């Protein structure tokens, strides 16, 4: 091996030190999104037109009616307290999961619900269980999560749902059959979304005005909430409308195991 001088060594070391480079500018940003300390967002189609969807490495964090991006970003920053930046597109895997959710597939989807109360998370998890194209009363949700007296708080938690459409708070309506409030742009949007899921809410309201609370079958002896998929299968000849004030059990019917109409009764 050739003899080496101090200068040689210094040159070699300087050349190696010259191999230090700056990280690409995308590295810090994508890392912070991956650990959930920053979010990205993009637009997604929905029955009520385009909506903004925000997400981070922990899951979907926000859905909001798409409008002025600057306004959405500043609202997000002040409400959520994290930086947010536009993405060119929703990551393919997330986009597929969202699409599946919106057509009623209940395959799990990651949601970022940090810094929310246990009560809110209970209410939203319960809403996630309601099948597409069906509705449940606020009172039913309250009873199902073991807080039968907290009907008003359930309404308020649903109003604060940060991920509407994905968490289907539009499937929770008033116990008197009226459609109730909707955080994603008001009650008419709620009607539109339910219609897109195949539910005619006007029909439900007509039933409610006529005092009908449940639909029962004299074939099976089972009673349901009116929008339950089992209620829709009852043929005209066997459909027995049960009005408020009627005790279905006393009338010889048992509660459907799918829609659990007795939960709403217990809370009444």
């Amino acid at each position, binding site marked *: 091996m050739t003899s080496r001088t101090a200068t040689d060594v210094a040159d070699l070391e300087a050349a190696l030190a010259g191999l*230090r*480079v700056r990280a690409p500018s995308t590295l*810090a940003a994508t890392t912070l999104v991956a650990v959930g300390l920053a979010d990205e967002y993009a637009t997604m189609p929905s029955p009520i037109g385009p909506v903004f969807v925000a997400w981070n490495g922990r899951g979907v964090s926000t859905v909001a009616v798409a409008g002025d991006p600057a306004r959405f970003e500043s609202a997000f920053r002040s409400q959520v307290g994290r930086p947010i930046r536009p993405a060119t597109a929703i990551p393919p895997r997330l986009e597929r999961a969202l699409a599946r959710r919106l057509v009623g597939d209940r395959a799990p989807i990651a949601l970022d619900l940090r810094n929310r109360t246990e009560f809110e998370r209970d209410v939203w998890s319960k809403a996630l269980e309601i099948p597409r194209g069906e509705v449940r009363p606020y009172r039913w949700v309250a009873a199902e999560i073991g807080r039968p007296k907290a009907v008003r708080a359930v309404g308020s938690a649903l109003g604060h749902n940060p991920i509407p459409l994905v968490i289907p708070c539009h499937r929770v309506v008033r116990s008197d059959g009226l459609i109730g409030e909707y955080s994603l742009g008001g009650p008419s949007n709620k009607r539109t979304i339910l219609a897109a899921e195949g539910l005619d809410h006007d029909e439900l309201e007509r039933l409610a005005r006529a005092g009908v609370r449940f639909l029962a079958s004299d074939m099976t002896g089972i009673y349901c909430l009116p929008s339950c998929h089992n209620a829709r299968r009852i043929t005209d000849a066997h459909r027995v409308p049960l009005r408020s004030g009627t005790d279905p059990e006393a009338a010889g019917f048992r509660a459907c195991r799918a829609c659990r109409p007795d939960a709403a009764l217990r809370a009444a």
Partner: protein
Amino acid sequence: MDIDSAVAAGDPTGLTVALARDLDGAFERLVLSQQDRLYSIALRMLGDARDAEEVAQDALVRAYRALASYDGQRILELQLRPWLTTILLNLCRNRARRRAPVTLPLDGGGELDLQPPVLVAADRHSPHDSALRRESTRRWASLIAGLPARYRAAIVLRHVDGLSYAEMSIALGRPEGTLKAQVHRGLALLRAALERAEATDRREMTA
């Protein structure tokens, strides 16, 4: 451990103190202070800019998750630079194994290619460098890529990143004496490879 002793333990910026107190609030500082060195190490270990960015990001995400699971005392006792380096090098090893690139050993002493046949991505982050400097960076990167892994890690950590032998010993889990010998041997291999490459250049120019 308080701030003063954390500083005494080689954390002059008080970063471990901040991380122990508020991980989410301080993590961005960790990213910004460590990203260049983690990316540089990964780039020189793997030789590919995209792989290096992915591995550096993965290392930082794993570090975040680990920190989130540690109690405050454990975070205060961490030596961040070597700790992050260990996480990064493990990921580099996994990545290299998956890719299984064709490399020729430089210490074989037998026939050697002029340039090890590892593709080293052009350094896209120094667009203002002169062509000469870029050429030199490419050559050195390529020579390093041809080193056997144990010498490559030692050379990259010592001379590209500038870790102390004490930090390297923590990061690589090898005694300092072994590391000094590996750095020494690695430099000798690099020098020999450079001389061979230059000799070939001369032959080609006169051919």
